[in-house]
């Protein structure tokens, strides 16, 4: 989360859908976010150095140029690659695919959420992203407590060892 602004990648082969999603999230999210759009999984992977907090990805990817027969990786393959390279990124699959097997595969591979692309999916996504970012903001505080407790525990054990060794001598 660079500069306290969450980074959100939107990955879909449909430029129009990307534009609509980006417009909707920019207008409706309760916080400022850097929203970047990519039309293929390959493009998304090439920009992972930006360390996105959330990646929203489609299932099917077809080349925008109909004369280009190059096969693009699908959303499930992309999830696999993202899990290896960016394990802390929250992955959301957003697809018109209603086959439950695809949703199962996506979750199994490492997606945290699966949203069916329908007319009001941008609104659903807006609330989901809001909740994810809210949870992330509060998670580090919990971690500070955890590490603090461990440090106190270690100090306590060292003190006892010191006292015991002092008593023996």
């Amino acid at each position: 989360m660079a500069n306290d602004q969450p980074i959100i990648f939107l990955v879909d082969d449909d430029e129009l859908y990307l534009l609509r999603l980006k417009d909707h999230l920019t207008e409706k999210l309760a916080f400022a976010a850097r929203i970047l759009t990519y039309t293929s999984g390959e493009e998304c992977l090439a920009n992972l150095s930006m360390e996105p907090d959330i990646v929203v990805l489609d299932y099917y990817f077809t080349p925008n140029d109909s004369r280009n027969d190059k096969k693009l990786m699908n959303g499930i393959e992309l999830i696999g690659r993202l899990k290896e390279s960016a394990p802390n990124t929250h992955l959301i699959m957003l697809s018109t695919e209603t086959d439950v097997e695809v949703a199962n595969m996506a979750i199994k591979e490492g997606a945290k959420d699966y949203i069916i692309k329908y007319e009001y999916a941008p609104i659903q996504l807006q609330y989901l992203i809001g909740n994810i970012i809210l949870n992330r903001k509060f998670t580090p505080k919990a971690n500070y407590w955890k590490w603090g407790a461990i440090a106190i525990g270690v100090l306590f054990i060292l003190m006892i060892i010191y006292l015991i060794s002092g008593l023996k001598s």
Partner: protein
Amino acid sequence: MWTKVPCLKFSFDIVKTGIFDELKSQPMLNSQLDEDIVSRFSHQQVITYFNLYLKNASVIIDSMAEDIQNKDYESLRSRAHKLKGSSMVVGAGIMKELASAIEQHAKEKNKADIEKFEQLKDQFAELIHLLKIRYNISYENY
């Protein structure tokens, strides 16, 4: 009598002046576009989204015709899937339903639903006409 029931007089006037005939000639004003979706767009978004939609959809429909000719039903399914998604964004409900039917047919039966494809082309032509009337979006730009 008409002064006591003004709504009836109004209805009568509409029939008399032929406004209904004029409305009937409009290309499916109420069912082509999902008003709830479109009303969420700003004017600038309407222009941007529909310009992009018309440009992309015309390319996809031409490619679908080629797929049908070449009997490439996997490619047809993939393009119909893409058109379904784009149509959903702009609230083009009938286009979305037809694209979805073509996608399903290609997926399940490995065949082209020619009848639905012809309907899709007709609906696209009507949508172009509707967008020209409502928003002055001109398809001839492409």
